[in-house]
Protein backbone atom coordinates (compact mmCIF):
# COMPACT_ATOMS: atom_id res chain seq x y z
CA UNK A 1 0.00 0.00 0.00
CA UNK A 2 1.36 3.45 -0.83
CA UNK A 3 2.31 5.80 1.99
CA UNK A 4 -0.44 8.25 2.87
CA UNK A 5 0.35 11.91 3.26
CA UNK A 6 -1.16 14.15 5.90
CA UNK A 7 -0.89 17.74 7.00
CA UNK A 8 -1.29 18.77 10.63
CA UNK A 9 -2.75 22.22 11.21
CA UNK A 10 -2.24 22.39 14.98
CA UNK A 11 -3.02 25.87 16.27
CA UNK A 12 -3.91 27.00 12.75
CA UNK A 13 -7.52 26.64 11.65
CA UNK A 14 -8.72 25.67 8.20
CA UNK A 15 -9.80 29.26 7.51
CA UNK A 16 -6.32 30.45 8.59
CA UNK A 17 -4.86 28.09 6.00
CA UNK A 18 -7.26 29.40 3.40
CA UNK A 19 -6.38 33.02 4.20
CA UNK A 20 -2.68 32.36 3.77
CA UNK A 21 -3.44 30.86 0.37
CA UNK A 22 -2.13 27.47 1.40
CA UNK A 23 -5.38 25.52 1.29
CA UNK A 24 -5.43 24.75 -2.40
CA UNK A 25 -1.86 23.48 -2.34
CA UNK A 26 -2.62 21.39 0.71
CA UNK A 27 -5.69 19.92 -0.93
CA UNK A 28 -3.55 18.81 -3.85
CA UNK A 29 -0.75 17.28 -1.80
CA UNK A 30 -2.39 15.63 1.18
CA UNK A 31 -5.11 13.01 1.54
CA UNK A 32 -5.36 13.47 5.35
CA UNK A 33 -5.89 16.61 7.39
CA UNK A 34 -5.09 16.62 11.08
CA UNK A 35 -7.25 19.08 12.99
CA UNK A 36 -7.84 19.72 16.66
CA UNK A 37 -5.21 19.99 19.32
CA UNK A 38 -2.70 17.47 20.59
CA UNK A 39 -1.43 19.44 23.57
CA UNK A 40 -4.05 21.90 24.78
CA UNK A 41 -7.79 21.57 25.40
CA UNK A 42 -8.28 25.34 25.04
CA UNK A 43 -7.96 24.89 21.29
CA UNK A 44 -10.79 22.36 21.10
CA UNK A 45 -14.08 23.82 19.95
CA UNK A 46 -17.12 22.92 17.89
CA UNK A 47 -16.00 24.86 14.79
CA UNK A 48 -13.76 21.85 14.16
CA UNK A 49 -16.89 19.87 13.26
CA UNK A 50 -17.72 22.18 10.38
CA UNK A 51 -14.12 21.94 9.15
CA UNK A 52 -14.27 18.14 9.34
CA UNK A 53 -17.47 18.11 7.28
CA UNK A 54 -16.03 20.52 4.70
CA UNK A 55 -12.86 18.55 4.25
CA UNK A 56 -14.67 15.27 3.94
CA UNK A 57 -16.99 16.85 1.37
CA UNK A 58 -13.86 17.58 -0.64
CA UNK A 59 -12.85 13.91 -0.43
CA UNK A 60 -10.34 14.18 2.37
CA UNK A 61 -9.84 12.00 5.42
CA UNK A 62 -9.57 13.72 8.77
CA UNK A 63 -7.85 12.97 12.05
CA UNK A 64 -9.22 14.80 15.08
CA UNK A 65 -6.36 15.23 17.55
CA UNK A 66 -7.17 15.55 21.23
CA UNK A 67 -4.98 16.46 24.23
CA UNK A 68 -4.85 15.76 27.97
CA UNK A 69 -8.30 16.65 29.29
CA UNK A 70 -9.53 18.28 32.45
CA UNK A 71 -13.28 18.09 33.21
CA UNK A 72 -13.73 21.22 31.08
CA UNK A 73 -11.85 19.70 28.18
CA UNK A 74 -13.78 16.46 28.50
CA UNK A 75 -17.06 18.41 28.40
CA UNK A 76 -15.88 20.26 25.27
CA UNK A 77 -14.93 17.01 23.59
CA UNK A 78 -18.24 15.43 24.55
CA UNK A 79 -20.00 18.33 22.84
CA UNK A 80 -17.82 17.94 19.74
CA UNK A 81 -18.73 14.24 19.57
CA UNK A 82 -22.39 15.12 19.94
CA UNK A 83 -22.18 17.59 17.03
CA UNK A 84 -20.26 15.06 14.93
CA UNK A 85 -22.90 12.41 15.59
CA UNK A 86 -25.61 14.82 14.46
CA UNK A 87 -23.62 15.64 11.31
CA UNK A 88 -23.13 11.96 10.64
CA UNK A 89 -26.88 11.35 10.90
CA UNK A 90 -27.49 14.11 8.36
CA UNK A 91 -24.90 12.60 6.03
CA UNK A 92 -22.40 15.44 6.35
CA UNK A 93 -19.71 13.48 8.19
CA UNK A 94 -18.48 9.99 7.40
CA UNK A 95 -17.04 8.21 10.42
CA UNK A 96 -15.19 5.75 8.21
CA UNK A 97 -13.01 8.66 7.10
CA UNK A 98 -12.51 10.10 10.56
CA UNK A 99 -9.83 9.05 13.01
CA UNK A 100 -9.53 10.13 16.63
CA UNK A 101 -6.05 10.65 18.05
CA UNK A 102 -6.01 10.52 21.87
CA UNK A 103 -3.68 11.63 24.62
CA UNK A 104 -6.06 10.95 27.52
CA UNK A 105 -8.05 7.90 28.59
CA UNK A 106 -11.10 10.16 28.89
CA UNK A 107 -11.18 10.69 25.12
CA UNK A 108 -11.38 6.92 24.63
CA UNK A 109 -14.15 6.68 27.23
CA UNK A 110 -16.11 9.52 25.60
CA UNK A 111 -15.84 7.95 22.16
CA UNK A 112 -17.03 4.66 23.59
CA UNK A 113 -20.05 6.13 25.38
CA UNK A 114 -20.92 8.27 22.34
CA UNK A 115 -20.69 5.07 20.27
CA UNK A 116 -18.48 6.77 17.71
CA UNK A 117 -17.41 4.07 15.26
CA UNK A 118 -14.11 5.80 14.53
CA UNK A 119 -10.62 4.39 14.49
CA UNK A 120 -8.56 5.54 17.44
CA UNK A 121 -4.84 6.25 17.39
CA UNK A 122 -2.43 7.01 20.23
CA UNK A 123 -1.31 10.63 20.22
CA UNK A 124 2.23 11.92 20.50
CA UNK A 125 2.13 11.81 24.28
CA UNK A 126 -0.08 8.75 24.79
CA UNK A 127 2.03 6.54 22.50
CA UNK A 128 4.57 6.30 25.32
CA UNK A 129 2.28 3.74 26.92
CA UNK A 130 3.47 1.28 24.27
CA UNK A 131 6.66 2.64 22.72
CA UNK A 132 9.89 4.18 23.82
CA UNK A 133 11.93 6.37 21.56
CA UNK A 134 15.14 8.32 21.37
CA UNK A 135 17.14 9.85 18.56
CA UNK A 136 18.56 6.40 17.75
CA UNK A 137 15.82 3.87 18.46
CA UNK A 138 12.11 3.20 18.40
CA UNK A 139 11.10 0.21 20.49
CA UNK A 140 7.87 -1.45 21.42
CA UNK A 141 7.75 -1.71 25.19
CA UNK A 142 6.20 -5.18 25.28
CA UNK A 143 3.57 -7.28 23.58
CA UNK A 144 1.42 -6.70 26.67
CA UNK A 145 1.55 -2.92 26.10
CA UNK A 146 0.35 -3.35 22.51
CA UNK A 147 -2.33 -5.73 23.67
CA UNK A 148 -3.49 -3.38 26.41
CA UNK A 149 -3.97 -0.52 23.94
CA UNK A 150 -5.35 -2.77 21.23
CA UNK A 151 -8.10 -3.78 23.67
CA UNK A 152 -8.99 -0.08 23.82
CA UNK A 153 -9.16 0.06 20.02
CA UNK A 154 -5.71 1.47 19.39
CA UNK A 155 -3.56 -0.01 16.68
CA UNK A 156 -2.07 3.16 15.24
CA UNK A 157 0.57 5.27 16.92
CA UNK A 158 1.47 8.89 16.22
CA UNK A 159 5.20 9.37 16.66
CA UNK A 160 7.60 12.17 15.74
CA UNK A 161 10.63 11.74 13.53
CA UNK A 162 13.81 12.24 15.56
CA UNK A 163 16.22 13.01 12.77
CA UNK A 164 17.79 9.62 12.17
CA UNK A 165 16.65 6.21 11.07
CA UNK A 166 15.89 4.47 14.35
CA UNK A 167 16.76 0.91 15.34
CA UNK A 168 13.64 -1.02 16.16
CA UNK A 169 12.74 -4.26 17.94
CA UNK A 170 9.61 -4.99 15.92
CA UNK A 171 11.00 -8.28 14.62
CA UNK A 172 13.00 -9.23 17.68
CA UNK A 173 11.81 -12.70 18.64
CA UNK A 174 12.46 -11.98 22.31
CA UNK A 175 9.44 -9.66 22.26
CA UNK A 176 7.18 -12.34 20.76
CA UNK A 177 5.29 -9.77 18.72
CA UNK A 178 4.61 -12.25 15.93
CA UNK A 179 3.63 -10.33 12.84
CA UNK A 180 3.06 -6.89 14.30
CA UNK A 181 -0.30 -5.44 13.36
CA UNK A 182 0.21 -1.90 14.55
CA UNK A 183 0.84 1.05 12.22
CA UNK A 184 2.73 4.27 12.72
CA UNK A 185 1.94 7.77 11.54
CA UNK A 186 5.23 9.65 11.45
CA UNK A 187 5.15 13.37 12.15
CA UNK A 188 7.86 15.61 10.79
CA UNK A 189 9.83 17.86 11.16
CA UNK A 190 8.85 18.93 14.74
CA UNK A 191 9.21 16.64 17.73
CA UNK A 192 7.44 17.52 20.99
CA UNK A 193 9.96 17.53 23.80
CA UNK A 194 7.84 18.49 26.79
CA UNK A 195 4.39 19.88 27.59
CA UNK A 196 3.06 21.86 30.53
CA UNK A 197 -0.59 22.20 31.46
CA UNK A 198 -0.04 25.70 32.73
CA UNK A 199 0.90 27.28 29.43
CA UNK A 200 4.39 28.73 29.23
CA UNK A 201 3.33 31.52 26.95
CA UNK A 202 -0.34 32.01 27.75
CA UNK A 203 -0.97 31.32 31.42
CA UNK A 204 -0.90 34.41 33.61
CA UNK A 205 1.22 34.16 36.75
CA UNK A 206 -0.43 32.37 39.66
CA UNK A 207 -0.29 34.07 43.05
CA UNK A 208 0.15 31.99 46.24
CA UNK A 209 -3.45 32.71 47.27
CA UNK A 210 -4.83 31.64 43.91
CA UNK A 211 -6.20 28.17 43.46
CA UNK A 212 -7.05 28.31 39.79
CA UNK A 213 -10.07 26.77 38.11
CA UNK A 214 -8.39 26.13 34.79
CA UNK A 215 -5.82 27.33 32.34
CA UNK A 216 -6.81 30.83 31.33
CA UNK A 217 -5.04 31.97 28.25
CA UNK A 218 -5.79 34.22 25.31
CA UNK A 219 -4.73 31.60 22.78
CA UNK A 220 -1.41 33.30 22.29
CA UNK A 221 -0.28 30.16 20.49
CA UNK A 222 -2.57 31.00 17.56
CA UNK A 223 -0.48 34.09 16.92
CA UNK A 224 2.88 32.41 16.64
CA UNK A 225 5.73 30.56 18.26
CA UNK A 226 9.18 31.40 19.61
CA UNK A 227 12.58 30.01 18.81
CA UNK A 228 14.83 29.74 21.82
CA UNK A 229 18.58 29.37 21.70
CA UNK A 230 19.03 27.44 24.95
CA UNK A 231 22.54 28.09 26.27
CA UNK A 232 23.16 24.44 27.09
CA UNK A 233 21.41 22.64 24.24
CA UNK A 234 22.87 22.62 20.72
CA UNK A 235 19.57 22.36 18.88
CA UNK A 236 17.21 25.30 18.66
CA UNK A 237 14.06 24.82 20.70
CA UNK A 238 10.72 26.14 19.54
CA UNK A 239 7.97 26.97 22.00
CA UNK A 240 4.39 27.18 20.94
CA UNK A 241 1.91 27.63 23.75
CA UNK A 242 2.46 24.96 26.34
CA UNK A 243 4.84 22.73 24.39
CA UNK A 244 8.54 22.84 23.62
CA UNK A 245 9.57 21.37 20.28
CA UNK A 246 12.77 20.49 18.46
CA UNK A 247 13.02 20.61 14.70
CA UNK A 248 14.57 17.75 12.79
CA UNK A 249 14.51 18.93 9.18
CA UNK A 250 16.54 16.11 7.64
CA UNK A 251 14.81 13.17 6.08
CA UNK A 252 16.22 9.96 7.51
CA UNK A 253 14.98 7.77 4.70
CA UNK A 254 15.95 7.74 1.03
CA UNK A 255 12.72 6.14 -0.17
CA UNK A 256 9.26 5.73 1.26
CA UNK A 257 9.70 1.96 0.87
CA UNK A 258 12.17 2.06 3.78
CA UNK A 259 9.43 3.40 6.00
CA UNK A 260 7.32 0.27 5.65
CA UNK A 261 10.00 -1.70 7.51
CA UNK A 262 9.23 0.56 10.48
CA UNK A 263 5.50 -0.01 9.91
CA UNK A 264 5.12 3.62 8.92
CA UNK A 265 2.34 3.97 6.39
CA UNK A 266 1.50 7.64 6.89
CA UNK A 267 3.62 10.78 6.95
CA UNK A 268 2.22 13.78 8.79
CA UNK A 269 3.73 17.07 7.72
CA UNK A 270 3.67 19.85 10.29
CA UNK A 271 4.21 23.19 8.57
CA UNK A 272 4.90 24.63 12.03
CA UNK A 273 5.12 23.24 15.54
Amino acid at each position, binding site marked *: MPIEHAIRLGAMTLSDLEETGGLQNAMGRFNWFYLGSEFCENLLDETLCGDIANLQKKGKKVCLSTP*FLSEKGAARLKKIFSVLSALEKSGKVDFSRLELSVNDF*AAIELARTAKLPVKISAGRIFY*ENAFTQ*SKTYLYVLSRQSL*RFLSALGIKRYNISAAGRKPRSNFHNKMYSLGTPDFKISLYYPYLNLTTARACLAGMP*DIAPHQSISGVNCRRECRSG*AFEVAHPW*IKETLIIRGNTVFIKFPNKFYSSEKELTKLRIDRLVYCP*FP
Partner: protein
Amino acid sequence: MKIISCFTSLKEIAPLAAAGAAELYCAVNPLPSFGESLALKNITEFKQAAAIAHDLGLKVSVAVNSLRLQCDSRKAKRLAALCAEAEQSGADAFIISNLSALNIFADHKFRPRAALHLSSVQPCFNSLSAAFFIRSGFSRLILPNQLAPQEAKALLALCRKKGVETEIFDYRFFGCAYINGHCHMHTPWYHTLKFHSPEGSLCRVNIPVTKHLKPVHFTENSNMALMKTAACRLSGRLACGGAPRMANPASFFDFFTAGIQYLKYGVRQDTAAAKIRKVKELRYMADLAKRLKIDLGTGNARKTFVKKMTAWDGSTEKFSHAD
Protein backbone atom coordinates in the same frame (compact mmCIF):
# COMPACT_ATOMS: atom_id res chain seq x y z
CA MET B 1 -4.22 13.83 56.32
CA LYS B 2 -1.45 11.23 56.44
CA ILE B 3 2.12 11.72 55.35
CA ILE B 4 3.75 9.27 52.97
CA SER B 5 7.49 9.47 52.51
CA CYS B 6 10.09 7.91 50.30
CA PHE B 7 13.03 6.14 51.85
CA THR B 8 16.22 4.70 50.40
CA SER B 9 17.83 2.95 53.35
CA LEU B 10 16.74 0.87 56.34
CA LYS B 11 18.20 3.40 58.76
CA GLU B 12 15.77 6.06 57.58
CA ILE B 13 12.61 4.16 58.44
CA ALA B 14 12.36 4.71 62.18
CA PRO B 15 13.36 8.41 62.08
CA LEU B 16 10.87 9.03 59.26
CA ALA B 17 8.14 7.40 61.29
CA ALA B 18 9.13 9.53 64.29
CA ALA B 19 9.06 12.63 62.06
CA GLY B 20 5.45 11.95 61.16
CA ALA B 21 5.35 9.57 58.21
CA ALA B 22 2.36 7.24 58.39
CA GLU B 23 3.34 5.34 55.26
CA LEU B 24 6.49 4.77 53.29
CA TYR B 25 7.44 3.89 49.75
CA CYS B 26 10.62 2.92 47.99
CA ALA B 27 12.17 1.73 44.79
CA VAL B 28 13.74 -1.73 44.82
CA ASN B 29 16.34 -2.97 42.36
CA PRO B 30 15.80 -4.38 39.78
CA LEU B 31 12.11 -3.37 39.67
CA PRO B 32 11.67 -0.57 37.11
CA SER B 33 10.80 2.70 38.83
CA PHE B 34 10.44 6.20 37.41
CA GLY B 35 13.58 8.29 37.26
CA GLU B 36 17.06 7.08 38.08
CA SER B 37 17.01 7.70 41.77
CA LEU B 38 18.24 5.60 44.63
CA ALA B 39 16.69 2.22 45.33
CA LEU B 40 17.02 -0.56 47.84
CA LYS B 41 19.63 -3.09 46.74
CA ASN B 42 17.25 -6.02 46.22
CA ILE B 43 14.12 -7.72 47.48
CA THR B 44 16.02 -9.19 50.42
CA GLU B 45 16.77 -5.70 51.66
CA PHE B 46 13.17 -4.75 50.99
CA LYS B 47 11.97 -7.62 53.13
CA GLN B 48 13.99 -6.25 56.04
CA ALA B 49 12.62 -2.76 55.36
CA ALA B 50 9.03 -4.03 55.30
CA ALA B 51 9.54 -5.85 58.60
CA ILE B 52 10.87 -2.71 60.28
CA ALA B 53 8.07 -0.57 58.82
CA HIS B 54 5.34 -3.02 59.81
CA ASP B 55 6.72 -3.26 63.35
CA LEU B 56 6.27 0.51 63.55
CA GLY B 57 2.75 0.23 62.21
CA LEU B 58 3.60 1.65 58.79
CA LYS B 59 2.53 0.31 55.43
CA VAL B 60 5.10 0.26 52.68
CA SER B 61 4.61 0.54 48.91
CA VAL B 62 6.98 -0.46 46.13
CA ALA B 63 7.41 1.73 43.08
CA VAL B 64 7.11 -0.17 39.80
CA ASN B 65 6.22 3.04 38.05
CA SER B 66 8.50 3.37 35.10
CA LEU B 67 6.36 4.47 32.18
CA ARG B 68 9.00 3.03 29.86
CA LEU B 69 8.19 -0.46 31.04
CA GLN B 70 10.24 -2.23 28.40
CA CYS B 71 9.92 -6.00 28.76
CA ASP B 72 10.75 -8.75 26.33
CA SER B 73 9.24 -12.14 27.16
CA ARG B 74 11.98 -13.05 29.60
CA LYS B 75 11.87 -9.70 31.42
CA ALA B 76 8.09 -9.78 31.63
CA LYS B 77 8.21 -13.18 33.34
CA ARG B 78 10.91 -11.89 35.67
CA LEU B 79 8.94 -8.72 36.46
CA ALA B 80 5.90 -10.72 37.51
CA ALA B 81 8.05 -13.06 39.60
CA LEU B 82 9.85 -10.16 41.31
CA CYS B 83 6.59 -8.42 42.14
CA ALA B 84 5.21 -11.65 43.56
CA GLU B 85 8.35 -11.97 45.67
CA ALA B 86 8.05 -8.33 46.77
CA GLU B 87 4.48 -8.99 47.84
CA GLN B 88 5.50 -12.07 49.80
CA SER B 89 8.24 -9.95 51.36
CA GLY B 90 5.74 -7.45 52.68
CA ALA B 91 4.76 -4.98 49.96
CA ASP B 92 1.41 -3.49 50.89
CA ALA B 93 1.00 -1.78 47.52
CA PHE B 94 2.55 -1.38 44.11
CA ILE B 95 2.82 2.06 42.56
CA ILE B 96 2.26 1.63 38.84
CA SER B 97 2.14 3.98 35.88
CA ASN B 98 2.11 1.81 32.76
CA LEU B 99 -1.04 -0.29 32.88
CA SER B 100 0.54 -2.97 30.72
CA ALA B 101 2.06 -4.12 34.01
CA LEU B 102 -1.36 -5.52 34.84
CA ASN B 103 -1.36 -7.52 31.60
CA ILE B 104 2.13 -8.78 32.41
CA PHE B 105 0.97 -9.89 35.86
CA ALA B 106 -2.09 -11.65 34.39
CA ASP B 107 -0.03 -13.41 31.71
CA HIS B 108 2.19 -14.87 34.41
CA LYS B 109 -0.62 -15.77 36.76
CA PHE B 110 0.31 -13.19 39.40
CA ARG B 111 -2.81 -11.76 41.01
CA PRO B 112 -1.60 -9.07 43.39
CA ARG B 113 -3.18 -9.06 46.82
CA ALA B 114 -1.25 -5.86 47.45
CA ALA B 115 -3.09 -2.67 46.63
CA LEU B 116 -2.48 -0.91 43.33
CA HIS B 117 -1.68 2.78 43.45
CA LEU B 118 -1.74 4.84 40.23
CA SER B 119 1.47 6.83 39.89
CA SER B 120 1.32 10.51 38.94
CA VAL B 121 3.55 9.47 36.04
CA GLN B 122 0.30 8.26 34.44
CA PRO B 123 -1.44 11.59 35.02
CA CYS B 124 -5.14 11.54 35.84
CA PHE B 125 -6.75 14.90 35.14
CA ASN B 126 -10.45 14.02 35.10
CA SER B 127 -13.14 11.77 36.50
CA LEU B 128 -13.57 9.70 33.31
CA SER B 129 -9.93 8.60 33.38
CA ALA B 130 -10.24 8.07 37.12
CA ALA B 131 -13.22 5.77 36.51
CA PHE B 132 -11.16 3.79 34.01
CA PHE B 133 -8.26 3.42 36.45
CA ILE B 134 -10.60 2.44 39.26
CA ARG B 135 -12.23 -0.23 37.07
CA SER B 136 -8.71 -1.46 36.29
CA GLY B 137 -8.16 -2.16 39.97
CA PHE B 138 -6.46 0.92 41.43
CA SER B 139 -7.46 1.74 44.99
CA ARG B 140 -5.43 4.93 45.26
CA LEU B 141 -4.78 7.69 42.72
CA ILE B 142 -1.66 9.82 43.12
CA LEU B 143 -2.69 13.06 41.49
CA PRO B 144 -0.36 15.02 39.20
CA ASN B 145 0.92 18.41 40.32
CA GLN B 146 -0.61 20.03 37.24
CA LEU B 147 -4.20 19.48 38.41
CA ALA B 148 -5.94 22.27 40.31
CA PRO B 149 -8.30 21.37 43.18
CA GLN B 150 -11.19 23.22 41.52
CA GLU B 151 -10.66 21.02 38.47
CA ALA B 152 -10.53 17.90 40.60
CA LYS B 153 -13.98 18.18 42.21
CA ALA B 154 -15.71 15.55 40.09
CA LEU B 155 -12.69 13.25 40.30
CA LEU B 156 -12.55 13.52 44.09
CA ALA B 157 -16.31 12.98 44.40
CA LEU B 158 -15.97 9.80 42.36
CA CYS B 159 -13.09 8.58 44.48
CA ARG B 160 -15.07 9.22 47.68
CA LYS B 161 -18.04 7.35 46.25
CA LYS B 162 -15.89 4.38 45.25
CA GLY B 163 -13.81 4.33 48.42
CA VAL B 164 -10.65 5.11 46.46
CA GLU B 165 -7.91 7.02 48.24
CA THR B 166 -6.21 10.10 46.84
CA GLU B 167 -2.74 11.49 47.29
CA ILE B 168 -0.96 14.68 46.31
CA PHE B 169 2.66 15.79 46.39
CA ASP B 170 3.85 18.58 48.65
CA TYR B 171 4.12 21.53 46.28
CA ARG B 172 7.27 22.76 48.03
CA PHE B 173 9.27 19.65 47.25
CA PHE B 174 8.05 18.70 43.79
CA GLY B 175 8.84 21.40 41.37
CA CYS B 176 8.30 20.20 37.86
CA ALA B 177 5.77 22.20 35.89
CA TYR B 178 5.92 19.92 32.88
CA ILE B 179 3.69 16.88 32.68
CA ASN B 180 5.43 14.24 34.71
CA GLY B 181 6.51 11.11 32.90
CA HIS B 182 6.38 12.75 29.47
CA CYS B 183 9.05 15.40 29.86
CA HIS B 184 12.13 14.85 27.70
CA MET B 185 13.88 18.05 28.61
CA HIS B 186 16.42 16.81 31.08
CA THR B 187 17.61 13.54 29.63
CA PRO B 188 19.09 14.06 26.16
CA TRP B 189 17.10 11.40 24.37
CA TYR B 190 16.60 13.80 21.47
CA HIS B 191 18.70 16.90 21.94
CA THR B 192 22.44 17.29 22.29
CA LEU B 193 23.90 18.84 25.39
CA LYS B 194 26.80 21.22 24.93
CA PHE B 195 28.13 20.01 28.24
CA HIS B 196 26.89 18.00 31.16
CA SER B 197 24.34 19.92 33.18
CA PRO B 198 23.05 19.20 36.66
CA GLU B 199 19.81 17.22 36.73
CA GLY B 200 16.68 19.32 36.45
CA SER B 201 18.51 22.45 35.52
CA LEU B 202 17.68 22.67 31.83
CA CYS B 203 14.43 24.43 32.63
CA ARG B 204 16.11 26.68 35.17
CA VAL B 205 18.88 28.32 33.21
CA ASN B 206 18.95 31.40 35.46
CA ILE B 207 20.09 33.71 32.75
CA PRO B 208 18.04 36.30 30.91
CA VAL B 209 16.86 34.69 27.71
CA THR B 210 15.34 37.72 25.99
CA LYS B 211 18.14 37.94 23.49
CA HIS B 212 17.81 34.23 22.80
CA LEU B 213 14.09 34.43 22.00
CA LYS B 214 12.84 35.00 18.44
CA PRO B 215 9.20 35.10 17.34
CA VAL B 216 8.48 32.78 14.42
CA HIS B 217 5.54 31.37 12.45
CA PHE B 218 3.44 34.49 12.80
CA THR B 219 1.36 35.99 10.00
CA GLU B 220 -0.16 39.37 9.25
CA ASN B 221 -3.24 38.23 11.18
CA SER B 222 -1.22 37.45 14.30
CA ASN B 223 -1.93 39.50 17.38
CA MET B 224 1.50 41.00 17.93
CA ALA B 225 0.48 42.58 21.24
CA LEU B 226 -0.24 39.08 22.54
CA MET B 227 3.04 37.86 21.10
CA LYS B 228 4.85 40.64 22.99
CA THR B 229 3.19 39.63 26.28
CA ALA B 230 4.00 36.01 25.58
CA ALA B 231 7.64 36.90 24.86
CA CYS B 232 7.97 38.69 28.21
CA ARG B 233 6.44 35.76 30.04
CA LEU B 234 8.67 33.26 28.30
CA SER B 235 11.80 35.22 29.07
CA GLY B 236 11.06 35.18 32.78
CA ARG B 237 9.82 31.62 32.89
CA LEU B 238 12.61 30.02 30.92
CA ALA B 239 15.11 31.73 33.15
CA CYS B 240 13.68 30.34 36.36
CA GLY B 241 11.87 27.07 36.15
CA GLY B 242 9.46 26.94 33.25
CA ALA B 243 5.71 27.20 33.32
CA PRO B 244 3.79 28.58 36.31
CA ARG B 245 3.14 26.16 39.15
CA MET B 246 -0.47 25.23 39.66
CA ALA B 247 0.39 23.73 43.02
CA ASN B 248 0.86 26.35 45.74
CA PRO B 249 -0.27 27.12 49.31
CA ALA B 250 -3.84 27.85 48.21
CA SER B 251 -4.15 24.69 46.14
CA PHE B 252 -2.81 22.61 49.02
CA PHE B 253 -5.35 24.08 51.41
CA ASP B 254 -8.17 23.51 48.94
CA PHE B 255 -7.10 19.89 48.39
CA PHE B 256 -6.86 19.49 52.15
CA THR B 257 -10.42 20.71 52.71
CA ALA B 258 -11.60 18.56 49.78
CA GLY B 259 -10.49 15.52 51.77
CA ILE B 260 -7.29 14.32 50.09
CA GLN B 261 -6.03 11.59 52.39
CA TYR B 262 -2.28 11.51 51.71
CA LEU B 263 0.45 14.10 51.35
CA LYS B 264 3.56 12.81 49.68
CA TYR B 265 7.21 13.63 49.85
CA GLY B 266 9.32 11.90 47.21
CA VAL B 267 12.82 13.28 46.72
CA ARG B 268 14.75 10.02 47.01
CA GLN B 269 18.06 11.72 46.32
CA ASP B 270 17.83 13.79 49.50
CA THR B 271 20.07 12.81 52.39
CA ALA B 272 18.48 11.07 55.35
CA ALA B 273 18.64 14.28 57.37
CA ALA B 274 16.91 16.24 54.61
CA LYS B 275 14.21 13.60 54.27
CA ILE B 276 13.48 13.66 57.99
CA ARG B 277 13.41 17.44 58.08
CA LYS B 278 11.05 17.60 55.10
CA VAL B 279 8.68 14.99 56.50
CA LYS B 280 8.44 17.15 59.64
CA GLU B 281 7.61 20.08 57.34
CA LEU B 282 4.85 18.08 55.68
CA ARG B 283 3.46 17.02 59.03
CA TYR B 284 3.59 20.56 60.34
CA MET B 285 1.84 21.97 57.25
CA ALA B 286 -0.96 19.39 57.33
CA ASP B 287 -1.45 19.92 61.07
CA LEU B 288 -1.45 23.69 60.57
CA ALA B 289 -4.20 23.45 57.96
CA LYS B 290 -6.26 21.24 60.27
CA ARG B 291 -5.77 23.46 63.32
CA LEU B 292 -6.59 26.66 61.47
CA LYS B 293 -9.70 25.12 59.96
CA ILE B 294 -10.97 24.09 63.37
CA ASP B 295 -10.10 27.40 65.02
CA LEU B 296 -11.06 29.88 62.31
CA GLY B 297 -13.48 28.20 59.94
CA THR B 298 -12.55 27.42 56.34
CA GLY B 299 -12.61 30.96 54.87
CA ASN B 300 -10.39 32.68 57.44
CA ALA B 301 -8.27 29.56 57.84
CA ARG B 302 -7.44 29.64 54.16
CA LYS B 303 -6.33 33.26 54.25
CA THR B 304 -4.22 32.69 57.35
CA PHE B 305 -2.75 29.48 55.98
CA VAL B 306 -1.80 31.06 52.66
CA LYS B 307 -0.24 34.04 54.42
CA LYS B 308 1.82 31.80 56.69
CA MET B 309 2.94 29.39 54.00
CA THR B 310 3.76 32.18 51.53
CA ALA B 311 6.20 33.40 54.16
CA TRP B 312 7.73 29.92 54.46
CA ASP B 313 11.39 30.13 53.69
CA GLY B 314 12.44 26.55 54.11
CA SER B 315 11.61 25.89 57.72
CA THR B 316 8.49 26.04 59.83
CA GLU B 317 10.47 25.98 63.06
CA LYS B 318 10.01 29.70 63.58
CA PHE B 319 6.29 29.30 62.84
CA SER B 320 6.06 26.80 65.68
CA HIS B 321 7.44 29.34 68.13
CA ALA B 322 5.15 32.09 66.84
CA ASP B 323 2.12 29.78 67.06
